[in-house]
Each structure stands twice: as C-alpha cells, then as structure tokens.
C-alpha cells in the first residue's frame, strides 16, 4: 500500500474514479477502457468525462450495446498483453456477462496451469433508490463473490474508490468493481498524488464497544449515520467496511465482533443467499464463543425493486432501520 502525500482536497466520487483512470492510463499504455457511451458522453453518469480528450478514441472506446461481447473481448485482450477496463453501465447487466466472467476470465489462469493471466477490471454499479425500477437497481455483487478466480471490490467513498481502482487495475486477476450509482456526486477527501489501497484490508471507520456494524458500499454511510444516532442514546457502535468481498478480511470482522459481542451486517444486495449470509456465517463461526446475540442480517428486501418511491424506499436498509435493529440486539426495547 502506497500512502498519499498530496494536499487534502474534496472531490466527488466521479472525479476520484476519473483521476484514478487518468493516472493509471498515463502510467501504463497497455490500459484501455471500453464500454457504451463512455467516450464523448463520458458515460451517462459523466464519470469518465474528458478521458477521451486526453487518451483518444483508441483507448477510450465507445462500444456497441454488447455486454457479453465487450467482456469477452476484454478477456482476450487481457490474455495477450493489454490491461483493459470494461465499463458495464448498470450492475443489472452483469447478467449478460456471467459466462465470460465466470467460465472464461475467472478460470483461465487455473485451467492453464498458471500460464495465462487475465488482468482486467470490470467497472459496474450497484444500488437502488434512484427510481429506476427492477432492471436498473440491483446489487448483484454476491454472484461474482461466489466465484473462485474473481476478486470483488465494493468501495464506499471517493478516497477508497480511487485507491482501490488503482489496485484493481494493477492486479493480475479479473476484478469486478462495483460502484454505488447514488454516490457518484458524493464528495470526499481525496488528497492529490499517488496512493493505492490493498485488497483484503477492512477499514474500521469508527471504533465502538457495544455492537459491530459491518457495512458495504452504499450501506457504509447508512451504518455511520446509525452509529451517530446510537451514540445519542448511549450505545457505542463500531463501523467496519470490508472494502473487498474477496479477498475478505475475516480477521478484522471477527475480532471486532469478539470485542463488541454483537454484530449487524448491512448490504444492499438481496438478503437471501447474499453477501450478508457469508459475512454473518463468518462472524457467527469466528466469534462464536464471544457473541451475546445472533448476528443480524440486513440486506435489500427479497423483492424485485419496485418503481414507486413509496415502495422502493422500504426495500433498502436505512439509518432508522439499522438503529432499530441495533437497539433490539442490545436489549434496548
């Protein structure tokens, strides 16, 4: 892990991602990025605005609407000396890339007995509450996390997004990088200059003693807000962001739960058979003899995400629902 030495600044998530790509593409000409409407349009979210001006359409490539195809092409390019990034506009569309990611990218290194490598990154999104309905609001990162050969990154703030994206690009394996589409405009402290953040190292955002809140991506803010509300009623919450689903920093999660004796897992993927299950199982196992209460899971409600705002808002954990769960867990009812 290299640490930043530049002056502190506040920039948006979009800018942080843009900087990470710009710096990496300057450093290594084998890197290119391909996706739909990413060049002049800079993606519909404008995250990549301006990149094409510096690197041209040879390295910032507008593609047809062919998620399987561009993912497949990127796998081949990565196997033969390039270090591509593929942009999948919405995380819901990874459904179309599963074969190339899982049967090809993830297995090539192993199947070739370690000879071939697939150093590629897939950037995509997760997160609901954008009123985009069932096919544009899913958080499907659990699927890739299930697959040996893939690494999965779920940053929660601009600083981490930048440092983790640089690490992802430098990694020699296929990496899936999920960004919360609701955070693109969120600002955060991102010092100028070079830094990277290693995979598999959880971030303890807040120390506490009564309950551990393990939160991912979009849910980290929610957990932090819940922690502040808990503080007001005299409960001390520890907030931990694993940052990467794989490699997973099990030790930090377990240690925290051993210390606080209670844990809640908060993730925006569907609850059932999702990320919360793995994290809860890991903690329930590793902290078994220290827990005072069952590990509580809070994922997205197990329904296709509804369009109507009044319904959609019910499907995602909020500071209020986390607060209630924590109070219950700590016997404050």
């Amino acid at each position, binding site marked *: 892990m290299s640490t930043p030495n530049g002056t502190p600044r506040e920039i948006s998530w979009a800018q942080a991602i843009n900087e990470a790509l710009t710096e990496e593409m300057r450093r290594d000409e084998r890197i290119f990025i391909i996706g739909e*409407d990413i060049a002049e349009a800079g993606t519909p979210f404008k995250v990549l605005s301006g990149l094409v001006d510096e690197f041209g359409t040879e390295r910032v490539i507008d593609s047809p609407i062919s998620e399987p195809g561009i993912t497949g092409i990127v796998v081949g390019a990565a196997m033969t000396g390039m270090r591509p990034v593929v942009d999948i506009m919405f995380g819901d569309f990874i459904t179309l890339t599963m074969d190339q990611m899982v049967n090809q990218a993830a297995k090539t290194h192993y199947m070739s007995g370690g000879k071939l490598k697939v150093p590629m990154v897939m950037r995509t999104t997760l997160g609901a509450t954008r009123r985009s*309905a069932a096919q544009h609001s899913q958080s499907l990162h659990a699927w890739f996390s299930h697959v040996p050969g893939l690494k999965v990154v779920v940053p929660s703030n601009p600083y981490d997004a930048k440092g983790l994206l640089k690490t992802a690009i430098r990694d020699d394996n296929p990496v899936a990088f999920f960004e919360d589409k609701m955070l693109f405009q969120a600002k955060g402290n991102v010092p100028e200059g070079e830094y990277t953040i290693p995979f598999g190292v959880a971030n303890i955002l807040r120390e506490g003693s009564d309950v551990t809140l393990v939160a991912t991506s979009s849910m980290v803010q929610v957990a932090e807000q819940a922690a502040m509300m808990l503080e007001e009623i005299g409960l001390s919450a520890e907030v931990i962001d694993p940052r990467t689903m794989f490699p997973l920093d099990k030790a930090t999660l377990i240690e925290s739960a051993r210390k606080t004796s209670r844990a809640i897992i908060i993730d925006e993927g569907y609850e059932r058979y999702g990320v919360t299950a793995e994290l809860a199982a890991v903690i329930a196992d590793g902290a078994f003899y220290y827990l005072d209460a069952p590990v509580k899971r809070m994922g997205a409600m197990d329904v296709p995400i509804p*369009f109507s*705002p009044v*319904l959609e808002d019910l499907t995602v954990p909020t500071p209020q629902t986390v607060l209630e769960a924590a109070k219950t867990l700590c016997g404050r009812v």
Partner: protein
Amino acid sequence: MTESAQSTSQIASVDREQWVHLYEQMLKIRVFETQANQLYLSAKMPGLTHLYSGEEAIAAGVCEALRIDDYITSTHRGHGHCLAKGARLDLMFAELLGKEAGYCRGKGGSMHIADQDTGNLGANAIVGGSAGIATGAAMSAKMRGTDQVAVCFFGEGALGQGLLYEVMNMASLWKFPVIYVCENNLYNEYTHYTETTAGTLVDRAHAFGMETAEVNGQDVREVYVTAMRLVERARAGEGPAFLVCNTYRFFGHHVGDINREYYRSKEEEELWKTERDPLTLLAEWMQAEGITDTAVLDQIEVNVKAEAEAAVEFALNAPYPSLDEVDRHVYA
C-alpha cells in the same frame, strides 16, 4: 415491385377513416409525451423517462396492422407502443407516477409498463431483452393454433445484443409469426449507430433467410401498409419478418438529456422536426388528398388534449400503493 411502388398501390386501398384514426393515434402519443416531459420538468414524476416523440408513425402504423389479441413487446422508449396497442392514458400516467391505479400498480414504472388486455407483454429496460419474449409469444401462438402474431419493437442499438440473433434464427427456422421492428433513430443513447454497427441493418436478418423490409419511419402510410403485408404473411404461417423503420427522436435520450450538441447538431434536430414530423406529413397529405380538413384535425387535437389533461389530473390525484404492496406479487 420495389417497397415504395408496392406501398403506393396499397396506400390507395386503405379506408379514409383509418388515416384519420392513425393521425389520432399518433397525436395521442405526441401529447402524452409532452405531458410526461412536463411532469418531469415540474418534478412530479419520479426517475427519468424516454420520450418517443418523432417516432410515432412506427408504433401507430405497426399496431394498426395488429389485432387486439396480437402481442407486442416494447422497450425503454415504450409509451408509443403501449398507447398504439390500445392502452389508456390515465392508467399509463398513473404508472409513470408510481401510483396504485397504474397498469402495474406503480411497481413497473415507465420502463416496464405491460397491459395484458391489449396484448402488450411489457416494456423492457434491458436493451434487446424482450426479443426472446416476443419470439416465445409467437411460438406459443403457433403451438396453441391461434393465428396471433407477435411484434418485437426495438431500437437499432439492440442489434448489438446476441440474443436477437439467437431468436431470429429459431423464428426463421420454425416459421414463427413474429415481426422484428427495428426503430432506427440513428442513436444508441449518445453514440451514432454507424459507430457501433458494421454492415447494413437488413442484412442482419438476411443472415437467417428472413423476409425483410425497410421503410421511411416518418411516413405512417408506408409503415402501415408494409406492416400489414408482413403481418398477413406471418398470420398465414409464412414466417417471420424484419422491418427497419428509419426515424428520429425529437427529444433527448431521456428527459434529462438536455445538452445534446456534443453528439448531434441543432441543425439535424431542426431538419427532422420541421421536414419530417410524422404528424405534419400525414396531416398535409390527408388535406391534399381531401381525406380530411383542418376543422376535423383541430377537433381531434382538442379532444386528445382534454383526455390527456384529465388523465394527468387523475394520475396526480391517485393514491400511492399501500405499503404492504411491497412484497406482494413476487410470486404468483
């Protein structure tokens, strides 16, 4: 005979009333979209929506060739298809606003409106995502021995999706009664289609030995008579077809796409709006042919606008779904 020579002779045989009806259908879409845009701009509609204005002749012309029990599948830019197939303005607006009275109880929204009663199997927010559904509906019609036809609407961007080729192969092989209607409005979101598309559009279907046609999508007369021909073929068991309709969207990719000059010029937009508006083209032709007059057209406009305003009013006043709706209808 060329497509257009063939069209000319067929246009003459269409009932005059029907042209007026087509005008009304197109106007209904135009007015709906204007209201939808208004709802967005006044922050009354959640999310974003994709307007069909400019492309009305396609939905209207194709659906006019269909029966109510025929199927369609639609896209993210789907209001036109839905209305042309016979949906009601009020229930559509209610859906766009996420109200329980909406076609999908507010759960689908603009990108997922479906209306079983008029054979609309749903808008789809996955580009190309409904190609299988339309093809399967046609297969089902054939298996059940009905003579229903299915129409799959999609933008030229959907030609990027492999699924389309997989199902066109099967449709052609097994002679399913399905028409693939490619609305070529020149842009995949913010990228010109020539930057993403090798070869020609119709050749994509020739690859499967499929009947193809290409029409001016701004001319509802051409769309309608060509669709009629293809639908009749399909209904008679002669197999699927691929229909390219060249068109243009007057607004942005979605309502929030305001500054568009980096991907298309104001001049280009102006040209299409002033020279190639499907409503103007039809109105002028009908007047020149003496099919109708200004008074009739004005009256239609008054009626449609009144209907649309009442529909918006209804939708704005309609209640949101009750909260216990959230986990209903996950399973049948």
